[in-house]
C-alpha cells in the first residue's frame, strides 16, 4: 500500500474515494430512509444523457452532466409528487430515455471516445486534479445544504404526513433532496461509474441504518463504511490488477453479506 501511495494517481484516487464516501454517506442515508433507491437509480442512469451531450458538444463532461442530471432529477421529483399513480413507470421511461439519448449522441460524435467506458464503470485511477477540485467544491455545497436543512429533511424522512400537518414545506425538501442526489451521482460517476453508483448509495447506509441511533449517526457510520470499502477495493484492484470500481463494489457487497450474518445493533448506548 505504501508503495502505491508513492504514485500521484493513486493518491488522487484515494482522495476521490474518500470524498465520494463522505457524500454517499450523507446522501445515501437520505436515499435509504426515504426509500427512493429506484429514483436515485433513475437519476444515475439518466445522467448518461449528460455524458453524451457533453461529448457531442465538446464541452467539459462533469459540469454538463451535472446540469443534465439535475434537470432529470427535478423532473422525476415532480413526477413522484404530482403524478404518483404511475410514477415508477415514468421514472423507468426517463431512466431508459437518458441512457438512449447518451448513446445516440455519442454515436453522432465524430471520432472514437476511449474515455466512454470510464463513465459507465468508473475510472478512479484516472481522476485528474481538476475533477478532484470540482468534487471537493460540490461536496462542500452538498454538505452545507444538508446541514442547513437537516431538521426539515429529518422530519420529512421520518413521517411525511406529520411533516405536512406541521406546515413543513415538504415539496421544497423533496426537490432539494432530488437535487442533492443528482450532485452526488455526478460526483461518484468518476469513482465507480453510473452503473455501480447505486451500490455505494445503498449498501453502506443499509448496513449503518440497523446500528445507528440517529440519522446523523447513520450518515457518519455510512461514510466510514464507504471509506473502508473504497480503500480496501482500491488496494485490491492495485494488488490483483482488477478494475477499481468493480473491486470497490465487490468489497462493499462482501461487507453487506457479512453484516446480514451479524446481529443488528442499536440497543446499546454506545452506538452511533
Amino acid at each position: 500500500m505504501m508503495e502505491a501511495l508513492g504514485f500521484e494517481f493513486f493518491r488522487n484516487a484515494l482522495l476521490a474515494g474518500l470524498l465520494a464516501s463522505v457524500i454517499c454517506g450523507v446522501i445515501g442515508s437520505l436515499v435509504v430512509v426515504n426509500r427512493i433507491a429506484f429514483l436515485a437509480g433513475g437519476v444515475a442512469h439518466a445522467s448518461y444523457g449528460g455524458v453524451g451531450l457533453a461529448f457531442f458538444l465538446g464541452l467539459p463532461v462533469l459540469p454538463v452532466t451535472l446540469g443534465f442530471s439535475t434537470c432529470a432529477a427535478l423532473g422525476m421529483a415532480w413526477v413522484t409528487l404530482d403524478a404518483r399513480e404511475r410514477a415508477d413507470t415514468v421514472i423507468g421511461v426517463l431512466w431508459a430515455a437518458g441512457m438512449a439519448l447518451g448513446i445516440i449522441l455519442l454515436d453522432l460524435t465524430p471520432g472514437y471516445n476511449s474515455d466512454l467506458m470510464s463513465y459507465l464503470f468508473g475510472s478512479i485511477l484516472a481522476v485528474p486534479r481538476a475533477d478532484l477540485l470540482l468534487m471537493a467544491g460540490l461536496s462542500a455545497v452538498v454538505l452545507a445544504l444538508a446541514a442547513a436543512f437537516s431538521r426539515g429533511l429529518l422530519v420529512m424522512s421520518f413521517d411525511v404526513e406529520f411533516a405536512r400537518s406541521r406546515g413543513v414545506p415538504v415539496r421544497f425538501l423533496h426537490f432539494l433532496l432530488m437535487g442533492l442526489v443528482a450532485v452526488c451521482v455526478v460526483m461518484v460517476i468518476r469513482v465507480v461509474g453510473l452503473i455501480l453508483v447505486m451500490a455505494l448509495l445503498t449498501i453502506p447506509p443499509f448496513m449503518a441504518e440497523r446500528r445507528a441511533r440517529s440519522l446523523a449517526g447513520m450518515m457518519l457510520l455510512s461514510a466510514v463504511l464507504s471509506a473502508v470499502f473504497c480503500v480496501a477495493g482500491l488496494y485490491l484492484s492495485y494488488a490483483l490488477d482488477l478494475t477499481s470500481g468493480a473491486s470497490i463494489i465487490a468489497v462493499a457487497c462482501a461487507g453487506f453479506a457479512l453484516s446480514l450474518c451479524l446481529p443488528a445493533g442499536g440497543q446499546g448506548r454506545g452506538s452511533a
Partner: protein
Amino acid sequence: MQPLALELNDLWFAYDGARVLDRVSLALPAGEFLAVLGPNGGGKSTLLRLLLGLARPGGGGIRVLGREPGQAGGRIGYLPQHTDVSANFPITVLGAVALGLVRPGFLGLCGLLGPAARRAEGRAALLALERVGLADQAGRRLSDLSGGQRQRAFIARAIVSGPELLLLDEPTASVDGKSRQELMALLAQLNRDMTIVMVSHDMGTVDGCVTSIACVNRGLHYHAESKLTPEIFAEAAGVDLKASCPVELVAHGAVPHRVLLDHDHPDCCGGAHRQADSGRGGGA
C-alpha cells in the same frame, strides 16, 4: 358559553367531481372527546385532512380553534395513521418526540439549533414522554418498542407542543386489545386538558370512552352520547341493522352486546350469531 374547538358550516369536498363529504355542519365545544366513526370511504380521513389544512374544501366554512385550517400551528396535535413510518428508522424515542416541536415554514427546516434550544427541546420531549408513561424508554431506539408503546410515543410527539386540540387518525388500529384499552385510558386522561377528535373504524373500542360521536358517511350526524346505540351503530357502519346478519356486523369491530342483542334475525346463519356473541364473552 364554552368556546368552539371546531366549526364546520355546510362543508363539502369532492375527489374527481364525486362528493365524498356533503353538507357537513358541526359546532364542537372545546373539551369534548369526539369519536368520528363511519364505513371505509365514508370521508373520515378526508375530514381530518380538511381540519389540518392539508386539503381545501370545495365549499362551506371551516374554523379550527377560531382560525382557518392550517393556521393554528402548535395549538393542534396530530397523530397520523402510521402505516408509512419505516420500522428501522434510526431514531431514539426522545428524538422522535422532539420532532413534534418543528416550527412551520422555512424557519423550522434549519438543523443548526443552539445548545440552549436543544436542551429546552429535550426537556419538553421528556415531559411529553412522562405524560404517556414512557419516560424510562426515552433513550431506546423507536424500533425496539412494541406496537402499543410506539403509539404512545407518537401521541407524545403530538402533544409535545402543548396543543389545545388533538386529532387522531385510527390510533388503535395497529395495537393489541390490552394496549388498546391502555391507549383509550391515556386519551381520556389527556382529554382533561385538550379537545380530542379521534377517527376510528373500531366502534367497540370507543364505546363509552368518548363524550360524543359523529357518524360520517358523506354527511355527518352528531350524537351527544358516549355510548353506541343500535341506531348510531347502524349509521356508523352504513348498514340496515334490522336487515343485517349479526355475524357480519361483528366485522365492524368489537360490537357491544346491547347492539347485537337489540335485534334478532331468525332467517340467517342458523343461530351462528349467538355462538359468536357468547364466544366474545363480554363485548363492550
